[in-house]
């Protein structure tokens, strides 16, 4: 699949935003490391919402006809893309109510109820983002429950790093934040490793034989019938060399998981805490972006069978 940069930015930024908001709620409930102040919670919450809005806006850049984008909320009952949009829209007012109840010192039950609802909605929205890809039967590398799991784990991992940076800036006790982040990042790394392992073996997939129905003998492409590329070759023809992909997988693990881990040790050791936390966030987000690029680049759509691939 052709990796569209607007979609990569969108999924990384909104994933981090939703992750940050839900973890902020947890930090608020349990007053982790002494607890953020009122202003700090509001700033953190607004920043998370900013990331979400930025992501949603960037996703409209890949639309060829954005003036109809508002219609995307209408097929909630069947389309995961529509669901994602609707959930993100429901998330916004709930998040605002939660932040307002912090600001105006609303009763605790109100504040926590809305915080909880917002966190659940954030979870559902990121899950829907993953399901947009996972529900496609046409792409073997996507049609697995590991995809929404990866989207959630990486979104929360990025969010937890942002939250750790917040805790460092706010001069809280960083230990609980480091513990949370380390746990989530480990889970994300393990899930990603399983995913990479899983998509390596083709399993039961369509072949050029079932695609053409000529199952009694070998089939090979003689001619695609078009002179230059078509929409199909531009959108689905993209292929990443195996070696390059392996290299990028190492980059994902080093940048996305290992480096933030090392930086967390530095934060824990109280060495240049702020710098270390900033590097952790940057590395985590960069790792997630590479991971997302690879997620698209490695996906092989079955239409490639008609263009000569023996299997996808």
């Amino acid at each position, binding site marked *: 699949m052709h990796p569209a940069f607007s979609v990569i930015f969108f999924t990384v930024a909104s994933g981090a935003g939703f992750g940050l908001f839900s973890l902020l709620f947890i930090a608020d409930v349990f007053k982790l490391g002494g607890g953020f102040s009122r202003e700090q919670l509001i700033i953190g919450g607004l920043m998370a919402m900013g990331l979400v809005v930025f992501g949603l806006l960037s996703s409209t850049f890949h639309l060829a006809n954005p003036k*109809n984008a508002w219609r995307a909320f209408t097929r909630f009952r069947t389309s995961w893309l529509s669901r994602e949009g609707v959930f993100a829209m429901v998330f916004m007012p709930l998040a605002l109510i939660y932040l307002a109840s912090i600001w105006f010192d609303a009763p605790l039950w109100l504040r926590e109820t809305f915080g909880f609802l917002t966190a659940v909605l954030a979870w559902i929205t990121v899950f829907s983002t993953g399901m947009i890809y996972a529900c496609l039967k046409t792409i073997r590398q996507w049609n697995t429950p590991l995809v929404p799991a990866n989207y959630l784990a990486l979104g929360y991992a990025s969010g937890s790093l942002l939250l750790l940076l917040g805790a460092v800036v706010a001069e809280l006790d960083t230990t609980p934040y480091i513990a949370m982040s380390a746990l989530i990042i480990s889970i994300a790394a393990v899930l990603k490793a399983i995913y990479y392992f899983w998509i390596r073996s083709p399993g039961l997939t369509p072949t050029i034989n079932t695609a053409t129905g000529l199952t009694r003998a070998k*089939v090979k*492409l003689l001619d695609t019938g078009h002179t230059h*590329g078509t929409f199909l070759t531009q959108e689905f023809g993209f292929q990443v060399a195996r070696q390059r992909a392996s290299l990028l997988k190492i980059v994902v693990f080093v940048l996305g998981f290992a480096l933030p881990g090392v930086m967390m040790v530095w934060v824990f050791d109280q060495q240049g805490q702020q710098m270390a936390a900033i590097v952790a966030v940057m590395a985590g987000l960069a790792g997630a972006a590479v991971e997302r690029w690879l997620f698209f680049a490695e996906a092989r759509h079955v239409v490639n069978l008609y263009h000569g691939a023996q299997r996808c």
Partner: protein
Amino acid sequence: MRLGLVIDLDVCVGCHACAIACKEWNASGTIGPLSDYQPYGAEPSGVWFNRIRHYEMDEYPNNKTVNFPMSCMHCEDADCVTVCPTGASYKRPEDGIVLIDQDKCMGCNYCSWACPYGARELDRSSGTMKKCTLCVDRIYDQDLPVEERQPSCVLTCPAHARMFGDFDDPDSAVSRTVRERSGFGLMPELNYNPTNRYLPPRSKPVIPVEPKSKGGLKESIKQFANKLVRR
């Protein structure tokens, strides 16, 4: 009704006439134009509803060329419709034709990802998704003579490799042909239940080739002379 096409892979000569006729009719049809990019340039490309690819089956000396036209299969379980977030893609309950409402489409490409058969193509100039309409603006046109109320590609095909009809009617020509010739749908394992059917290439009787006889003295002199004479 369940309208669709039957394509005879045994007969198709791969002339691309159906693709041209499709483009001609639909460029000015309900969801036209079908934009071309650099039609006379170095990298000609554009929107087509019907594409013909060419394959080789088996290996020499048992190989056979199979020409393979593909357009929308008007699937029974069309994921392209369910994934569409705007409701632009829809399947008509009355005849099973899958269409795209050009006024609603936002050009997100999602439906093209969901289509296994490469039937959907984005028109970069209108920013909307387009695909085969089964010539919905021909087949019901009361102004056309009855025999012309068929898709453009079907009418054009010089080899009569294409048929159009109702698959819900077990006695229709398409249903009968599919039954008799063991017509099949493509990639059944994905469960889209495509309506269009393909008829497999026939196994032809092998024509025996007799080894050339040696011939007598006369024959060898003739061959020798033939070699000498420059033609």
